[in-house]
């Protein structure tokens, strides 16, 4: 979408979708950031305030869905515009789920804060920071239509998975050491799982950015039998 539409109103509608998606993404980013601070600083008020702001995410999802549907009905877009709008519809679903996961993090943070600290959650905070950076980078990639940047985000998902495995092992030892640690350790483990899922959703966003720009479906790469892939082998007519 390098060039502008001849119809400026149509151009404006597409711009509005793009802006709203970015607003929603920034809001999720902000929530995740606050949740991590609430965890690190044992701030239950901040956790509760963050939970409430999920309303904004939900409202934005409904708004963007409606906007996309209206543009689809009105303009019957094709090619890059079609890919952009269908991806926007999918992006907001992932963003909304991420908002829900941040709410789950905050719930566990509030529970944890009612107990004495188990240990400093250094690795968990690191993991959340990686997820946060991934989200930030993927939103930039969406705005710029930058495939290389989106692919770098997708690659980082492995780092998050590794951090999760490491945190999980550590928590197991805590639990085995002392059964009184179990309540807190399972809460910490849940948070780590939520962060890991947030990173998974961010990876989905990265795949969507690649599809939006290239028109190439990279999901489940190499894992689907080729006839099930959404991708067409070739755009050439049968005889030429």
């Amino acid at each position, binding site marked *: 979408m390098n060039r502008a539409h001849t*119809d400026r109103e149509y151009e404006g509608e597409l711009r509005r979708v793009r802006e709203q998606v970015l607003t929603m993404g920034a809001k999720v980013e902000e929530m995740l950031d606050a949740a991590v601070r609430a965890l690190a600083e044992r701030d239950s008020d901040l956790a509760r305030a963050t939970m409430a702001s999920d309303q904004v995410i939900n409202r934005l999802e409904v708004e963007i869905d409606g906007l996309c549907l209206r543009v689809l009905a009105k303009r019957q877009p*094709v*090619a890059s*515009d079609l890919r952009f709008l269908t991806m926007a519809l999918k992006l907001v679903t992932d963003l909304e789920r991420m908002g829900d996961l941040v709410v789950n993090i905050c719930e566990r943070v509030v529970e944890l804060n009612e107990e004495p600290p188990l240990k400093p959650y250094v690795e968990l905070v690191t993991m959340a920071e990686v997820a946060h950076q991934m989200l930030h980078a993927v939103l930039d990639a969406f705005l710029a239509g930058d495939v290389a940047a989106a692919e770098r985000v997708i690659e980082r998902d492995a780092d998050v998975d590794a951090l999760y495995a490491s945190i999980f092992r550590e928590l197991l030892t805590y639990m085995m050491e002392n059964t009184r640690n179990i309540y807190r350790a399972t809460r910490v483990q849940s948070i780590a799982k939520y962060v890991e899922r947030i990173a998974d959703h961010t990876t989905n966003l990265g795949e969507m950015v690649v599809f939006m720009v290239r*028109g190439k479906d990279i999901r489940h790469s190499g894992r689907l039998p080729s*006839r099930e892939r959404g991708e067409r*082998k*070739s*755009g050439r007519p*049968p005889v030429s």
Partner: protein
Amino acid sequence: MTSVPPSAPEPRPEKMRVESLRAYFGDALALKGISMSVPERCVTAIIGPSGCGKSTFIRCLNRMHEVTPGARAEGAVFLDGKNILGDDVDPVDVRRRVGMVFQKPNPFPTMSIRENVLAGLTLNGIRPPDPARLVEESLRQAALWDEVKDSLDRTGTSLSGGQQQRLCIARCLALEPEVILMDEPCSALDPIATARIEELIHELRERFAILIVTHSMQQAARVSDFTAFFYMGELVEHGTADVIFTKPTSSRTEDYITGRFG
């Protein structure tokens, strides 16, 4: 990645092939060397901005182009492997095998519906053995029979625009063509009449090679198996409609179909 996706149209034999086609109006070059193939039993849509040569192109496919004074074509157009631009070919025979439906429905004003259906034959001095049956068959194929069977003596021009267009299609079908060319056949029709013609195109596609020129991207996406994008007398891109309308290769095609002009 070697298997063909299930929804891909199976390869069809080639009905027509165009090679290095150049079309002139006097000294002006309207088509600058077009090469493409037209598969059997498929719909090929021709899209592109006004003046890019769409009408000229399809008029070359049934030797209508040369009817314009000063107009001529170079290159080759093969129909079942035979070059129809050759001097040894009778243009009247070509036009029977490659029928044409125009933008404006053009039934003969003084003729009845029945006479209109038979006009292509009678004007060429051909008497069909069973005219009543041919009229009924052609009108049925054109999905007009039920609406006009009780009034075949009405004039063709007393029909609605959409009915007139189907009458013109019936007139084309009465000649038992092998290829049907349509130049913006729905541009004067309302959405219901357009849907009827498109439904008809889907049916006719089972038996004919169809080429349709259209200015509606949605129509091209709806009816065509293959889409060719023309720009300033050149063929820019030709591919399956699926690919052209979701991920065209050329940025020219992309700009045109999404509405980003100049």
